[in-house]
């Protein structure tokens, strides 16, 4: 009731009581939680649908006869790494650090891209 009355005009809001302000705060944080819980549910639903769809397609692809044998990829080829705002030397250092931290040889890791993250806000 208070919320609805308060929402009507800004003039009325300049006179709200402390209890009105407290109620507004409770409603406010509840709205934030409800909105993000709903986004969480939607995200889970979206992921579930996409993953199941991709799994199904994967099974169909696997069942279909392969037109030709895929070319063998040498185990030691990590592929090209796209660099955005990072120098080759820095990228090589980062890849070495990741390999060291994961206790895996570099040829068992595949780096797709390395990008410098800049502070946005």
């Amino acid at each position, binding site marked *: 009731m208070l919320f609805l009355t308060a929402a009507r005009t800004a003039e009325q809001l300049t006179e709200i009581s*402390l209890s009105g*302000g407290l109620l507004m705060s409770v409603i406010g944080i509840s709205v934030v939680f409800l*909105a*993000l819980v709903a986004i969480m549910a939607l*995200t*889970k639903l*979206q992921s579930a649908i996409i993953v199941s769809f991709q799994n199904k397609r994967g099974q169909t692809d696997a069942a279909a006869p392969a037109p030709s044998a895929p070319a063998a990829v040498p185990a030691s080829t990590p592929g090209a790494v796209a660099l955005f705002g990072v120098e080759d030397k820095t990228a090589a250092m980062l890849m070495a650090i990741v390999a060291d931290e994961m206790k895996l040889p570099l040829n068992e890791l595949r780096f797709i891209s390395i990008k410098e993250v800049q502070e946005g*806000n």
Partner: protein
Amino acid sequence: MNVGKVLQDLWETSGFNNLFVHWENAVMVVIACVLLYLALVKGFEPLLLVGIAFGMLLTNLPLGGLMHMEFYQDKVVDYGRVLHEGGLLDILYLGVKLGVYPCLIFLGIGAMTDFGPLISRPSSLLLGAAAQLGIYCAFILSFLLGFTPQEAASIGIIGGADGPTAIFLTSRLASHLLGPIAVAAYSYMALIPLIQPPIMRALTTKKERETKMEQVRAVSKTEKIIFPIVVTLFAVLLLPSVAPLIGMLMLGNLFRECGVVERLSDTAQNALINIVTIFLSVTVGATSVGWLINNDGVSVGFLSLNTIKIIALGLFAFGFSTVGGLLFGKLMYKLSGGKVNPLIGSAGVSAVPMAARVSQKVGQEANSSNFLLMHAMGPNVAGVIGSAVAAGFLLSVFG
């Protein structure tokens, strides 16, 4: 020609002669220089603070005519007068006053943000929501300290730790407080590595801080493309007032993820955001005029008791937002049987990526093999959405 008269006129129309007509302006020039020192020498948020401090410097130098804050004291601004009589910064300030720049910054932030960690662990959104607690605690406290609900809402949003959101809401609800609120918001964002760690250590046990989290699953391109569309549809339908912020954030993210508009994505996350940051920072700094009288004859300059209150309330808001995120992180730690490190909760304040880096740093202090950065990025970007939703709520109620 009377040379003496010419020199006298020159002196009388010079800024030196007028610098101390209002001592408040001279003090503001000193404050601007201190902020420049912090930005240039100490490295406190230089990308924003250099512009803010220089705008502050320009607006307080007498007779420059770059900015006329008296134009914006009426409830209904006479934009014709601004265009006819305004200076350079008056014209640029229209982008702040009309809420254009914060939204364009959100476009750039969206283009720079990877929502992958959030999509792979959607429960991060709860931490992003809990870390908005400070907004409402500061709102109540501001209200108790005598601010109007509109002013209290604008002060509270500092707790969202999101500069563009704070500027967007304040320009709509309490534009006369824009200077102190923007300075407080960006100053505290720069000070996050100092503010958060003591709170994090105080509220968590060593065992909790040592918790190593499992690797999250890989997120497909399709999920990343659909996510901004789904969030926009839902959030804007729920709270239409959030459309400018969430809409631009998600558009920028769609540019990034869709893979067919590389040039637009590149422009949004580099050239556009840099240009808008220059305009925004300089004009927000220029709102901090030392001496200003409103139409009711009341002093509304930067140097007032209200500014000190806002600075203190901003710190309170930041602290409580951190507490909210950490407490919810501890709850998730318990409910998950010790699989979630509560330190990622403090990253729910939306200062991206500073807050996530602080989680990583404090986590690694407790356990050197702990890598929390990617786990903390989930709550961190959730905080951006959370603070935008909180701003949308406050705008719809108090606007």
